[in-house]
């Protein structure tokens, strides 16, 4: 039950994009069509889960043991960037169909706040190993939900008559604001 609450809270209440403002570059950059944003959501979830798993192990078994917690930022960034590179190579070699579908998104994720944010929050909230994993999956799914919703809204927007100065990023932000407003309705549903 505890895990379910954590999961739902990560997906909806503390949605990564709309309440924590992480991963906005990807959120606005890739949300132009629904297929691409679906792929992005899947890639982010996978990378997030793997990197929080590794980050948890490194933090608890290496950094804490050796009293090196002040190096957390440097270690996590390098860990994630190299994991993503490795993941890209492995997928390219062994699962080429998957690589053709989602490979291009992997490079975008390598140095990104959405993927670095989850391990940092896990450390900050002192989550146990299994809780970290659940939190990572939940955050990834939440990111995916937000970006797919946004993409479907933006596809509709193409037919709308938008003021010239707001065209592009301006109207996308206002739209995201409306989306955030509707997600606000979930706040207070679960408190942790």
């Amino acid at each position: 039950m505890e895990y379910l609450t954590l999961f739902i809270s990560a997906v909806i209440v503390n949605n990564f994009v709309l309440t924590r403002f992480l991963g906005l570059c990807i959120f606005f950059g890739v949300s132009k069509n629904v297929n691409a944003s679906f792929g992005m959501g899947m890639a982010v979830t996978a990378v997030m889960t793997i990197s929080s798993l590794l980050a948890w192990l490194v933090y608890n078994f290496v950094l804490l043991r050796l009293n090196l917690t002040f190096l957390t930022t440097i270690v996590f960034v390098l860990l994630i960037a190299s994991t993503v590179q490795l993941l890209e190579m492995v997928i390219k070699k062994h699962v080429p169909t998957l690589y053709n579908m989602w490979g291009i998104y992997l490079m975008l994720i390598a140095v990104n706040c959405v993927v670095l944010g989850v391990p940092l929050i896990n450390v900050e909230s002192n989550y146990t190993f299994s809780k970290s994993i659940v939190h990572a999956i939940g955050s990834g799914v939440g990111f995916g939900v937000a970006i797919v919703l946004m993409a479907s809204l933006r596809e509709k927007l193409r037919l709308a008559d938008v003021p010239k100065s707001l065209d592009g990023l301006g109207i996308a932000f206002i739209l995201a604001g409306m989306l955030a407003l509707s997600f606000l309705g979930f706040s207070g549903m679960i408190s942790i």
Partner: protein
Amino acid sequence: MRELWSIFSKGILLENPIFVLALSLCPALAVTSSVMTSLTMGLTVLFVITANNVSISIVKNFVNPKVRLPVYIVSIATIVTVSQLVLQAYFPLLYKALGIYLALVVVFAIILARAEVFASKNNVVRSFCDGLGMGAGFAIAMVIIGGIREIFGSGTFLGINIMPASYDAPLILILPAGAFILIGYLIGGVKIIVQRIEKAKA
């Protein structure tokens, strides 16, 4: 001198990191609910981007282009860690208010972008000016957003009450949704200004 000035000043309006280049938007929304946190974040980024530009332009000739990205990342992460420790030691309350967003300065696209686009191709003085200009543009944008959100959202400026008691602050400006909508309109406004300037030049 004139050339250095133009490198510095383009970061402030014509290539403003937040409003025009639309890079590093996460902090522009996340920590701008008050002027103090926006200013701290702005100055931190100003420091990190300038220091990183200088160090990258110093080492650019010794770094093999194949491994340049890891080198940039390590350099940025080191500088960010230093500023984290300084803030934690001298301004613990601000450090707490910025939370994980301070550590996330490491992955701000604008810092990596300046290292790749500018510092790796230019000398130390020019890179310094570029970092200073981009950082200043970022800090100014942060303070503008933070100012609007604090003055109209909670009726205060730097924590001092400035609105009349009858002012009923709209809560939405402090909430995430308000931040998105406000920045949307600001981007539109800056776009109009930049287009006017470019038209006047042409």
